[in-house]
């Protein structure tokens, strides 16, 4: 390639590639937006008090007045689903955050702590991996007692080993990478290499994974509430609503279908967004 070609090629080399969002990604984005509004300002999209009891309106099927129908006490299911968003999302997001922070701690310990610590942390992670995540969460609840806060902590704890392993792998591979070595050769301090090169490169894929993890955490939190170990009735929480509606599933399907649908859609939406993030950031190398 001649020098002239080099110059034109450089001019056309786009600094960042962009790809248009697909229909699925846009729908997922819209749904997440709906969830955010439901969390921040539930009053803006539902007008009925989620806990208002009205015996006369019990077990009404979906109608114009009650979009998702009413439950055994005549409470509006749509309002309760909207009201429950904040609880479910809060549990999902904080559980993921707890998992991330713990995982980061484990990963950094293993990645930077020297050979003995690396070995120990890895064995601990492996043992934790041996138990299904939900079982681990159940164990925590057995020790700490049921409730939304313990459920959050339990879910967070059980996701931590996965994040920990990913952080460790990233740190180990980045620490021996060419660009970290180049920074050392230039004489940059370890602190600067850590903050400018190692951590940003290790954390970017982790944040993407965390997006995927939120959906998972929401399902787990709902499962714990369903078992009566998380949010307690009459709190409007999707898992608890599922559990309460279970008795009437033969006669009033809307009690279980709508909260269940919310769980499914939340998981799908966060997964779709997480995957699209993975694709977009993964393509930079």
């Amino acid at each position, binding site marked *: *390639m001649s*020098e002239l070609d*080099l*110059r034109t*090629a*450089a*001019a056309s*080399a*786009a*600094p*960042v590639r962009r790809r248009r969002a697909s229909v699925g990604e846009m729908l997922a984005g819209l749904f997440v937006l709906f969830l955010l509004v439901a969390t921040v300002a539930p009053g803006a999209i539902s007008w009925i008090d989620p806990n208002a009891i009205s015996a006369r309106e019990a077990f009404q099927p979906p109608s114009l007045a009650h979009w998702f129908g009413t439950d055994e006490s005549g409470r509006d299911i749509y309002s309760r689903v909207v009201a429950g968003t904040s609880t479910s999302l809060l549990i999902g997001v904080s559980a993921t955050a707890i998992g991330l922070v713990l995982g980061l701690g484990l990963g950094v310990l293993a990645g930077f702590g020297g050979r003995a610590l690396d070995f120990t942390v890895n064995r601990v992670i492996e043992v934790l991996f041996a138990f299904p995540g939900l079982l681990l969460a159940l164990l925590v609840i057995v020790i700490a007692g049921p409730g939304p806060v313990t459920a959050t902590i339990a879910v967070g704890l059980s996701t931590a080993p996965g994040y920990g392993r990913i952080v460790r792998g990233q740190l180990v591979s980045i620490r021996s*990478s*060419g*660009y970290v*070595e*180049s*920074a*050392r*050769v*230039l*004489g*940059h*301090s370890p602190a600067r290499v850590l903050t*400018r*090169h190692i951590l*940003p*490169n290790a954390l*970017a894929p982790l944040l993407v994974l965390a997006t995927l993890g939120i959906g998972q955490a929401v399902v787990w939190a709902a499962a714990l509430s369903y078992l009566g170990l998380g949010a307690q009735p009459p709190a409007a929480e999707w898992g608890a609503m599922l559990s309460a509606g279970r008795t009437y599933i033969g006669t009033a399907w809307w009690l279980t279908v709508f909260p269940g649908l919310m769980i499914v859609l939340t998981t799908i939406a966060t997964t779709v967004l997480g995957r699209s993030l993975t694709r977009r950031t993964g393509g*930079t*190398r």
Partner: protein
Amino acid sequence: MTAPLLEVTGLSVAFGDTTVVQDLTFTVEPGQCVALVGESGSGKSVTARSLLGLAGRGSHISASRMQLSGRDLTTASERDWRRIRGPEIGLVLQDALVSLDPLRPLGREIGDSLRLHSTLSATAVRARVIEVLRQVGMPDPERALTLRSGELSGGLRQRALIAAALALDPPLVIADEPTTALDVTIQARILDLLTEVKSRGTGILLISHDLAVVSAIADRVVVMKDGRIVEAGPTRALLESPREEYTRRLIAAVPTDKPRGTPLVPGSTGVLPARSSRWTDAVGPVLEARSLVKTYSRAGDRFRAVNDVSFEVARGETLGLVGESGSGKTTVARLALALTRADEGDVLLDGAPFSTMRERDRRPLRSRIGAIYQDSLSSFDPRYSVRRILTDALDTAPVGDRSTVAELLDAVGLPTGVAESRPLFLSGGQRQRVSIARALAARPELIVCDEPVSALDVTVQAQVLDLLNRLQAERGLSYLFISHDLGVVRHMSDRVAVMKDGRIVETGTATDVFTDPQHPYTARLVSDAPRLTLPS
């Protein structure tokens, strides 16, 4: 005169709207070697693949004539192609490591084509495989049958690939960069082997970016650029009196036997980095290595990667360190940069201890030694633009004496426009320029260059080498220049150290070492180096 073995007239290959090969015409006679020469992207590999019906999805091939032994290939169906590949045309690929299945022993891998295309019995297949392995000079062919590709060295893997291509004794062999990743001595043996294959009457279509490699074996050369033929003719005529400017550039780019300081890119001004007294008056060497020893444990054994290595690099001088893969060159580079700790010996910078210091104390001194690597892309933070890479490096330069990003880019001949690009989107030559600019940013006195041009095409290599020479002349830099390529090392170095098995076997001025080698190993390296030779 007999009909040509392969006759191609007006071959064009397009992917969608992009034409990558246009109006290509050439013939290969039996027992003749025709070389397609050009840089990456010139369309030579696509041409080879079209001849095998493997141009790939979305390709559109048209040719007014494409005949193999009188048989029309333009109308061949996928079924026909399957009968052509193997028995009619053998293919030797570049990267032997990925071209052989790592899980299958050689005997099965090479025997595949025989089982597929012949009715030979299992014992006959085995006998034939042993025969071709012997033909390609595989030591102990019977044992080789059971080996997997990972158990072979690069040279032996390439031999195995050639054996696989020859197993069915095809009249035509296409060899796509068959020696590119190999050490010079092994490259020379592989070229000998291909010459031998040719002498048995097999036609060879050789594809390479390096005129020096093909000149050793090709009868005719077809020079390609941007999918078109620039010039074609008998090798001797083409090398002696090239008609086209581009061919002249390719010939000029071959560094072997070009005196130090001669520009490799014609038209550029020659800057002889003569070690003007301005730089050399300073007392003592910039870098001095004293009796370096580094051992690694490998499979329980202690293995001396670097064994009692001593050298000096004077101010404004280039010390070339040459040796084959595994000789310990890169370990020496890492020791010089104090990235690994030597077991014995030490490295002095300007006569003061460098390698034995504590890392904390050494850090301020690090900006005085820069480094450029073979794989420049992996030495850049993937999130960083060129501008950030350079500003990041500029922080280590002495305060008050800092260049700007624009000055750095200008110094290495890059347009300021690339500053906002990420290295991933730059060409190999541009990336290496960025990595030189980054090394310059810290105002180093010495730059350790570890195989800086090995991944580049010959013409791009010529530009980068010229750039390094110019910078040395302008700034009085010293280089520790590490390469397996003797031609490059000789062209770049004032003095040369030859490494083998962790030891320096010979040191001297470049001229002495290359014209009058004292050590037999050096003599072999020198005689095997690819140079523009005219076939007799």
